[in-house]
């Protein structure tokens, strides 16, 4: 029995030193397993890739390349300066501008970042709920369009008291998105239609529906032929939080509230338990009495509602007028945000802020250093690409593969415990023969 114990207990020989060493090994392994580390490293890699692209396209750097072998120092110095300038401009445009003339102007970037983040966070949360429930809602774009459209129409077509008008516009926007998501949800629940295909099709329908509406005079109510609507009434606008020169509006409070709500929904509510259960294992959920079709439909209704709310907040807080390009690429960026945030509420919030910041900073970067804002798109894309391929990131940074056994603490605990059990058991007869 003693031999058996030795073989099963990983911490037996070698004593404390070895144990400490294996603990450290473990910590590293656990850390690399943690998706946050991967996420962070992906951002780092993306910045490096971005830097290389900046160098490749920068005319100054190109000219130093011409005499690289004569004076390599020039090349390296110029490269360093170009990257430093570009990224510091990106940072100053997104967080804090220490070169600004007034203190107000220097904190303005961070508020711009938050303004950009509001619709990304709200829609990202809507997409994240789908991911957690095993559904790929690609229809954020359409749901945002519907949300913005409903909110806008309520905002300029009606005259309502302060408070009530805004509330109704927001609710209307959420409902618009919920209906658009609900179409896909109900179709999936009733007929098993693939939600990816249905939501993609609904994106196109929403786009052309909006284009058609913008040509209808009863809808735009502007009296002109321009495909753009009247501005929403002041009473329906999301009020500014800092006044004066800042665009930051109450939408950010809405985004924070939505983040808390989604956390509560997924982690604490019975409905969220159903959502997560059908996401992880629909068969077991069905066996446990969950009404899977109903939950499926609700996931897309609530997710669509959040996307719609994102569209509404974007319109009522920033744009005020409905145009054909109201959603921009928000719906697709929201998918990226949800991915980057690992479909967790807080993660999605932070990812939304990061993307909002990249967008805000990209503008200053382009204006001050001539670096094309498209670099921001590259950064975003590389981040997502790497997050989707954790082994690649691990390979770049020489991190150990968490799939190598032993896999997790739980497994190890189990084996320790089995060894302990074995030690307790009576010794078996080693030979039985008659």
């Amino acid at each position, binding site marked *: 029995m003693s031999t058996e114990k030795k073989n099963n207990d990983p911490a037996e020989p070698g004593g404390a030193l070895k144990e400490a060493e294996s603990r450290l090994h473990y910590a590293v392994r656990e850390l690399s397993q943690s998706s946050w580390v991967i996420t962070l490293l992906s951002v780092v890699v993306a910045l490096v890739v971005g830097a290389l692209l900046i160098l490749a396209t920068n005319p100054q750097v190109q000219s130093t390349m011409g005499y690289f072998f004569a004076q390599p120092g020039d090349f390296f110095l110029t490269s360093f300066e170009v990257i430093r300038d570009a990224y510091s401009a990106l940072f100053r445009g997104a967080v804090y501008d220490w070169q600004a003339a007034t203190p107000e102007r220097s904190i303005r970037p961070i508020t711009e970042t938050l303004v950009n983040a509001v619709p990304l966070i709200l829609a990202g949360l809507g997409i994240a709920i789908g991911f957690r429930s095993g559904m790929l809602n690609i229809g954020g774009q359409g749901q945002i369009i519907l949300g913005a459209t409903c909110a806008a129409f309520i905002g300029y077509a009606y005259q309502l008291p302060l408070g009530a008008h805004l509330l109704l516009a927001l609710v209307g926007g959420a409902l618009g998105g919920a209906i658009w998501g609900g179409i896909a949800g109900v179709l999936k629940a009733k007929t098993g239609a693939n939600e990816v295909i249905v939501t993609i099709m609904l994106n196109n329908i929403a786009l052309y529906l909006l284009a058609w509406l913008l040509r209808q005079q009863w809808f735009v109510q502007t009296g002109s032929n321009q495909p753009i609507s009247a501005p929403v009434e002041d009473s329906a606008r999301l009020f500014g939080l800092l006044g004066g020169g800042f665009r930051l509006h109450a939408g950010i409070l809405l985004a924070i509230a939505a983040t808390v709500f989604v956390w509560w929904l997924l982690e604490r509510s019975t409905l969220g338990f159903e959502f997560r259960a059908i996401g992880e294992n629909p068969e077991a959920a069905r066996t446990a009495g969950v009404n899977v079709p109903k939950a499926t439909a609700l996931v897309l209704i609530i997710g669509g509602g959040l996307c719609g709310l994102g569209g509404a907040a974007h319109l009522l807080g920033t744009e005020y007028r409905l145009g054909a390009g109201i959603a921009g690429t928000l719906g697709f960026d929201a998918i990226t945000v949800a991915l980057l945030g690992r479909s967790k509420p807080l993660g999605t919030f932070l990812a939304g802020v990061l993307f909002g910041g990249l967008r805000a900073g990209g503008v200053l970067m382009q204006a001050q250093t001539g670096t094309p804002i498209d670099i921001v798109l590259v950064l975003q894309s590389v981040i997502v690409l790497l997050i989707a391929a954790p082994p690649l990131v691990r390979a770049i940074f020489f991190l150990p593969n968490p799939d190598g056994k032993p896999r997790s603490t739980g497994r190890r605990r189990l084996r320790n415990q089995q060894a302990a059990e074995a030690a307790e058991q009576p010794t078996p007869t080693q*030979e039985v023969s008659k």
Partner: protein
Amino acid sequence: MKLQLKGVTKRFGTFTANDRIDLTVQPGEIHALLGENGAGKSTLMNTIYGLYSPEEGEILLDDKRVTFNGPGDAVEAGIGMVHQHFMLIPVFSVTESVMLGYEPTKTAGIIDFAEARRRVQEISARFGFDVDPDAMIEDLPVGAQQRVEIIKALSRDARVLILDEPTAVLTPQETDELIAIMRQLKESGTSIVFITHKLREVRAIADKITVIRRGKIVGEALPDSTETELASLMVGREVNLTTQKDPAEPGDVGFSVQDLTVVSRAGKVVLDNVSLDIARGEILCVAGVDGNGQTELAEAILGLREAVDGTITLDGTNLRRMSVKDRLNAGIGFVPEDRSTDGVIPAFSITENFVLDQYDQQPYSNGVAMKPSVMREAAVEQTSRFDVRLGTVDDPISTLSGGNQQKVVLAREMSRDIRFFLASQPTRGLDVGSIEFVHRTIIEERDKGTPCLIVSTELDEVSNLADRIAVMYRGVVVGIVPGDTDRDVLGLMMAGVPVEEAYAQAKDHHTILGGADEGAQA
């Protein structure tokens, strides 16, 4: 051919699946490898078959050292393997299946069907296999499919044949035929390695028994060892193979199914007018070969599958039109057949799995919000009562062994007030210790006066638990017989023979395993 392993060690990371295994299989020997699930039997066989390469040790065939880079090399060297789950393509004919991968060709690479067909016929004639070379695999019964696998191995000149749990899918009578084939192969000099965890078979068939536990060989035994000796060697401690239970004290009928009919999506009648009455305080076991409607019966009772006709009555209420949730709330406790897909959500914590079908019920929630602290407390209490070996209840349930996962499922179903207990294959894939525990728990539930319906394809389990046995064949209940009915009778009924006839036939013809039974309790 003589197969010899010397110090074969296979590790996965730091986990040693096979630890210095020494094993010798003489030519013409039937060598049984006995061990529990997860003991390392399959790893060892896959190593021999070239699917894994060992870290240490060597494999010798007829005293010559061999190394395999894949199953192809092993087949070349004369090793054949019949997997537990057959590697056959349903829409292929027998001939096509046998030649797949080793097609005889004529000039210009054209497949020589005639030659392939001739080879199949030749082998099946030599061993009296009775397999039609042109039959489609999907039309063959399981026993015949297994024979096709054996022909496949033999057609590649296998002189060492590895059979991985070959009897798991067979009726006792089909098992008999397999044993006859194995003996014939042995006569012709083929060595057979036979993997199993069933003690009864080992004693009936093997010439030599090697017992493996936690990756190591713990002993060798001869077939005349008693089952209890073999079991304690396999498990590493004294075990009770039969669970102590008092005679049932059946009350009035608590649960009843009348004329239940279920039609599959393809339009086939999978459950045909099934009627069962289960008294309070009684265990009714449903026996039968896998795939004869037992799964559908359990699913129809819980409401996962719609019944086209009949009634399902619990305490006088007809459940047939209710949702799954309403049926669970009416008091059905359900342990599903396939734990990992239907019973638990692997990524969820033990606590979440513990409340999986009561998440919106008192006291775990108020209907809208869940109460994590109440859930956790109950999970801690009940998992310790059911002796679940775990780290903390916040770990994902996938970190537990199969036996412990099943205990969590049982704890979940039995810790609430149930009026009827339904379990499908409650011990599938579990180790002997956990099987004992599960059986004891089910009998305790019976003694509390709960009607119990247990679906099982393992005859050992059925005989161990049942107060009455209903045998199913092709969606029909062939008959309901007392719990201590002879295994041979059950075996015949499992093949569709009506009750009286089964009794008559069993009297005249004892199966090998049935015969082995007599000496088993010595």
